[in-house]
């Protein structure tokens, strides 16, 4: 009623119902919503923490000053000495330990990248029992009681390779305390075939120790020693030391590679023979036959020459297409004698390995390039068959407790059903490890262990050196070192062996390592060893080994009967992810494969001829006899009838690793063979775009990367190069002080990509993911371009590290509307990030395509733990900003400040950027190019020197030295 009156009393003009609202009301609502939106947008972030000064400063830490700790990184049977940089107590960068005589400051890029493993947000942070959080006391109590009660049934401890004498001693103590305990060392990536051949011929196995620096002629049979086989750092350093002749007369080694797929080592071959793996054993025995016949080298005692009768190279059908090259190979081997080195890899059969051992023996290489006298006994690793027997015991209910320590058999053992069946009958399954991986998912006791940067240990991989591992940071979470878990278990079992593993290690070193009667107090000895990261010791060479000729005859018979399948699948380790242990590492996932140039995945490599026959292009999906559909990549230089897939992908656990690529371990045979016969390749008709970092396979006729044969090099002027002065419209740059520049020797560069990872770690370069890589938005400041030359069997490869050239006449500088990129007084092409407005004109105008744009906010939501990996000396760039190589300007400024503090000028070796420091081949040299005496100046004047796109008049600060190839035959040069 009242409402009706009101409506009569207050008629609304133009009213046509209740859908109308007054302007005032609308404005009020609009204003309120805008104010609310603004208020919501401006509210402080819940995660924001206050920045407070040190109220309780750690005595060891000086803010702003980096600390360095020597330590050791273990990868399988190799221990790489490292130097870890820490800022404000947190490790931020890993480089090689310059005190080590063999590594001289170089290390594996896996060590550099594994910094992310420390800060991985996936890490286990507390012990768990049956899926629930528990305490260490409860966990240890359960483990110890289970071991105590395992009488009657056995317990199994499965670890990776044990190359630590102290860890070995500790495990021996545990075995004493738990009589039924079996210790199994499992390394899925090990070269089981090679180990088996060595044991058959020599009756023992030693850790491989090859002297590539002494080898003139190297023959590699499916042996990717530059990429994945064993100690790649020493191999690259030694190999590269023989690849940089100052003149034609300087000499250079010669590398023959016999392989099916194209490996990193194959890409640097002087002569590459694309052969099926099944043919290798016969060809290797053909080489034995030829060396014995031509050089009259005596066969080992006990070997009947008649066993080699069927292996004459001219009669082997596989050898016929390569008769001339094999003939030259034999001549080279005979000429080089003890300075030869013949190697086989995991894809070669045991028989092929045996032939390589006999070749080295006949040529006198044993003790020269095969330095087994400097090596120590190899750990006794379980073969896949032996591991299968352990799993069968578990499945039969004969195992009461199984401990998996730093191994992941649920992922890398072939046959998932066998694994599941085995685990189902084991009452206590314990996982000691870093991450909640596939094996942890099957265990009822999951014990988080320390990262190696939080751990103590020692390693022995050669007779003359022991290396030490020390923590750079105290454990970030509630974790224990695996050895400490064993020690606490021992104490619980009534066999105490030490308060902590640190004490155990120190005690062992005091009793067994420090020389007897040394006048130096142990504390000083220990601290000195920790400071250096290693201990040099005088060691007698190991006893000379005697080769069993009768075993060789058996191998020859095996080689003669080797099957010849129509299609062979080669399963190689991934140079980035190894056997899969680094699959949760974003840096390594995004790092492009050095040959295929793909990241985030493992496509199946096919030879172009096979791909053409099936009408396949890059990314097309195919299936093999079993397993899922796989995208393919056309691989130049690959042998017909060979397909190649890398291991290490296709994990099912890990926030980064899961569902990336294909799990190739499921395709290996039960015997662990890395070569599998395949019936057919069937295209599915599907397609999956590959995350390719490089679209161009060739140089398209441009002279941007030079690869010369020694004969071509001989025709070049053999004097210092004079810099060409191209006409320019710009004034010459005025230099004040040094002009920083770089020289990159393409002859030494093997394309491993260590520089890419080091740059990423040093400069806070974000990971963008596969989708962005497909769009060409990868953020690497440095890339290693790969170009092919030639076709088919004559395919050659040149690798070229490409980064900002810091041009004197930089095309990027002139187009920046806000002067965000400009020229520094020391020649550096600088970036002022907070001035950049993101026009991208500079990237457009850069002929080298080395500028990277933050299309998205790639770093804004970096998890808390991952933020600790950032280098505080380098800005983290936001969205909308251009970035690129700075020549590690933070290192230059640091060196300048140190020099100023010391009252001296800069020395040539004072500034070493991250890429140069990491390069195991020492192919990158940095310094002042205005100083004619500096190393970089000398290299810049080399007669192999050139600038990329020099004709544009950009005046780059980086000089490349042409790659050299030393093929045999007419195009080859003399040594």
């Amino acid at each position, binding site marked *: 009623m009242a409402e009706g009156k009101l409506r009569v009393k207050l008629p609304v003009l133009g009213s046509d119902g209740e859908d109308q*609202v007054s*302007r005032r009301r609308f404005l009020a609502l609009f204003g309120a919503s805008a104010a609310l939106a603004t208020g919501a947008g401006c509210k402080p972030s819940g995660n924001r923490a206050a920045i407070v000064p040190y109220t309780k400063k750690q005595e060891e830490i000086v803010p702003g000053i*980096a600390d360095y700790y020597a330590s050791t990184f273990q990868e399988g049977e190799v221990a790489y000495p490292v130097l870890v940089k820490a800022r404000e107590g947190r490790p931020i960068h890993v480089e090689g330990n310059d005190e080590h005589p063999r590594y001289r400051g170089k290390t594996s890029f896996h060590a550099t990248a594994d910094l992310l493993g420390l800060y991985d947000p996936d890490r286990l*942070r507390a012990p768990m029992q049956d*899926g629930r959080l528990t305490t260490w006391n409860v966990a240890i109590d359960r483990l110890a009681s289970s071991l105590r009660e395992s009488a009657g049934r056995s317990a199994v401890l499965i670890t990776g390779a044990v190359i630590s004498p102290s860890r070995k001693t500790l495990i021996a103590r545990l075995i004493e305390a738990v009589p039924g305990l079996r210790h199994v060392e499992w390394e899925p990536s090990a070269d089981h075939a090679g180990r088996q051949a060595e044991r058959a011929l020599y009756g023992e196995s030693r850790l491989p120790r090859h002297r590539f620096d002494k080898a003139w002629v190297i023959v590699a049979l499916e042996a990717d020693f530059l990429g994945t086989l064993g100690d790649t750092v020493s191999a690259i350093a030694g190999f590269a030391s023989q690849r940089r002749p100052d003149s034609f007369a300087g000499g250079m080694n010669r590398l023959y590679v016999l392989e099916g797929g194209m490996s990193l080592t194959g890409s640097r071959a002087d002569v590459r023979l694309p052969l099926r793996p099944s043919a290798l054993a016969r060809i290797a025995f053909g080489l034995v036959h030829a060396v014995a016949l031509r050089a009259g080298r005596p066969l080992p005692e006990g070997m009947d020459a008649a066993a080699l009768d069927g292996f004459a190279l001219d009669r082997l059908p596989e050898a016929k297409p390569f008769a001339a090259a094999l003939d030259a190979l034999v001549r080279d081997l005979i000429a080089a004698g003890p300075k030869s080195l013949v190697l086989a890899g995991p894809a070669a059969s045991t028989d092929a390995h045996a032939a390589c051992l006999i070749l080295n023996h006949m040529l006198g290489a044993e003790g020269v390039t095969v330095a087994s006298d400097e090596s120590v006994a190899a750990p006794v690793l379980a073969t896949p068959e032996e591991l299968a027997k352990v799993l069968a015991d578990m499945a039969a209910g004969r195992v009461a407790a199984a401990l998996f320590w730093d191994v992941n058999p649920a992922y890398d053992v072939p046959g998932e059903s066998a694994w599941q069946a085995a685990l189902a009958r084991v009452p206590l399954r314990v996982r000691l490890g870093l991450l909640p991986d596939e094996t942890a998912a099957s265990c009822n006791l999951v014990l988080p262990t320390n990262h190696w940067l939080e751990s103590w240990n020692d390693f022995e991989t050669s007779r003359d050196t022991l290396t030490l591992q020390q923590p750079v*940071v105290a454990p970030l979470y509630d974790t224990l070192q695996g050895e400490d878990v064993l020690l606490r278990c021992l104490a619980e079992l009534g066999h105490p062996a030490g308060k902590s593993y640190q004490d155990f290690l120190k005690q062992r070193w005091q009793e067994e390592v420090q020389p007897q009667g040394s006048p130096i107090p142990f504390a000083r000895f220990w601290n000195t060893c920790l400071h250096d990261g290693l201990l040099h010791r005088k060691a007698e060479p190991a006893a000379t080994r005697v080769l069993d000729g009768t075993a060789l005859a058996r191998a020859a018979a095996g080689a003669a009967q080797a099957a010849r399948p129509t299609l062979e699948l080669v399963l190689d380790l991934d140079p980035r992810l190894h056997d899969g242990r680094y699959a949760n590492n*974003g840096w390594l996932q995004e790092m492009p494969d050095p040959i295929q140039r793909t990241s985030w995945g493992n496509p199946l490599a096919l030879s172009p001829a096979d791909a053409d026959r099936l009408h396949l292009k890059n990314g097309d999906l195919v299936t093999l006899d079993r397993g899922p559909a796989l995208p393919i990549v056309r691989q130049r230089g690959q042998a017909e009838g060979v397909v190649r897939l890398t291991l290490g992908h296709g994990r099912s656990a890990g926030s980064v690793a899961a569902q990336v690529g294909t799990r190739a371990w499921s395709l290996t045979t039960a015997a662990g063979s890395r070569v599998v016969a395949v019936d057919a390749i069937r295209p599915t008709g599907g397609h999956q775009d590959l995350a390719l970092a490089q679209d161009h396979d060739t140089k398209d006729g441009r002279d941007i990367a030079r690869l010369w044969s020694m004969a071509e090099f001989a025709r070049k002027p053999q004097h210092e190069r004079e810099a060409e002065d191209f006409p320019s419209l710009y004034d010459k740059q005025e230099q004040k002080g040094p002009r920083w520049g770089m020289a990159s020797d393409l002859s030494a560069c093997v394309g491993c990509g260590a520089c890419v990872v080091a740059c990423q770690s040093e400069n806070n370069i974000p990971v963008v993911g596969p989708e962005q890589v497909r769009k060409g938005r990868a953020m690497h400041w440095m890339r290693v371009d790969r170009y092919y030359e030639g076709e088919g069997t004559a395919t050659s490869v040149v690798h070229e590290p490409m980064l900002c050239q810091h041009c004197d006449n930089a095309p990027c500088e002139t187009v920046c509307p806000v002067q965000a990129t400009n020229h520094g007084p020391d020649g550096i092409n600088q970036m002022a990030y907070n001035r950049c407005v993101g026009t991208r004109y500079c990237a457009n105008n850069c002929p080298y395509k080395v500028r990277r744009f933050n299309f*998205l906010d790639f770093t*804004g939501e970096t998890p808390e733990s991952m933020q600790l990996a950032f280098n505080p000396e380098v800005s983290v760039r936001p969205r909308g900003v251009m970035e690129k190589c700075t020549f590690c300007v933070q290192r230059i400024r640091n060196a300048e400040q140190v020099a100023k503090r010391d009252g001296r000028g800069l020395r040539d070796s004072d500034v070493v950027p991250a890429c140069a420091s990491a390069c195991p081949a020492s192919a990158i040299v940095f310094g002042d190019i205005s100083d004619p005496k500096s190393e970089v100046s000398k290299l810049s004047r080399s007669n192999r020197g050139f600038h990329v796109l020099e004709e544009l008049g950009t005046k780059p600060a980086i000089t490349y030295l042409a790659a050299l190839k030393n093929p045999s035959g007419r195009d080859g040069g003399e040594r």
Partner: protein
Amino acid sequence: MKSNRTIPQSKLPRRTWLGAVAAVAAAWTGWKAGVRRTDAPRLSVSTSRRPRSSDSPRAPLVVRPSPDSVKRHG
């Protein structure tokens, strides 16, 4: 005495003002999403596949130097 004179007011349909409010909210949401794009992978970690908290309970992250280690130089 209360005047009966009506105040002239122009009216807008409710649909229009609701639309305007929604547009403001959508614009703000879009801007926010653009600046902080959450489905892009971060340094080493794709946020679309975060670890399950039940797998790995959050423990406090403590950074402190290892007391017995020996540093090279600083």
